């Protein structure tokens, strides 16, 4: 049987699926992981860059 739907119905359904998926993910606080020192140094650099970008 042919089934039709418009973009509004599709949009509504995609939003629900996205919410469903996001709710299935754990919270940041529930994830036990310690980033490596190398990673943390790289992130510090990026944070500095983001601050410079904000000032420009």
């Amino acid at each position, binding site marked *: 049987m042919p089934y039709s*739907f418009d973009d509004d119905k599709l949009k509504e*359904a995609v939003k629900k699926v996205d919410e469903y998926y996001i709710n299935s993910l*754990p919270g940041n606080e529930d*994830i036990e992981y310690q*980033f490596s020192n190398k990673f943390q140094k790289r992130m510090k650099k*990026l944070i500095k860059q983001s*601050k410079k970008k904000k000032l420009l």
Partner: protein
Amino acid sequence: MLVFYLSVIDTEEDKTKFELIYEQYGKLMFYIANQILKDKFLAEDAVHDSFIKIIKNLDKIQDVNCHKTKSFIAIIVKNHAINMFNNRKRKYCISFDEVQNMLFKDFEDFVLENNTDDNVNSLGDIGKAIMQLPTIYKDVMILKFVHELANPEIATLLNINEATVRKRIERAKQKIKALLEKEN
């Protein structure tokens, strides 16, 4: 004394949007990337590279704490990790089905655990069909319809060309239609 002043200056308000995103979603991003790459160091690389992408798209993030931001960030890191995985796949011959299985294992577990009629029915017929789509179609649809990005923006974000974005949206619609007709 100087250290004291610096710590006072560094209040929540003074923190940049970027720092807040890092604090709030850094570990989640690692979790998503590690699910795909199964390697902690590669997953850290994926998170770092995704943050570079986030810096370039900070204007698209309004409220750090909202669902939409979590969704946006999850898509960025997921797609970057998939690209990294695919590059490795070419070296080690890992099938795309394996990527799909790894990606949605937690989501499928969640659906199975919460598979009450209310939960599943709340998604509606179209939602249930969308859930069955491969992630490459699903993510493009989410960026288009939830984040309301234009096709060129989606293309830049996912490192694909605009024609591929159009094709994925078109194919996703065809697949949803086919699934709905099959169910009926």
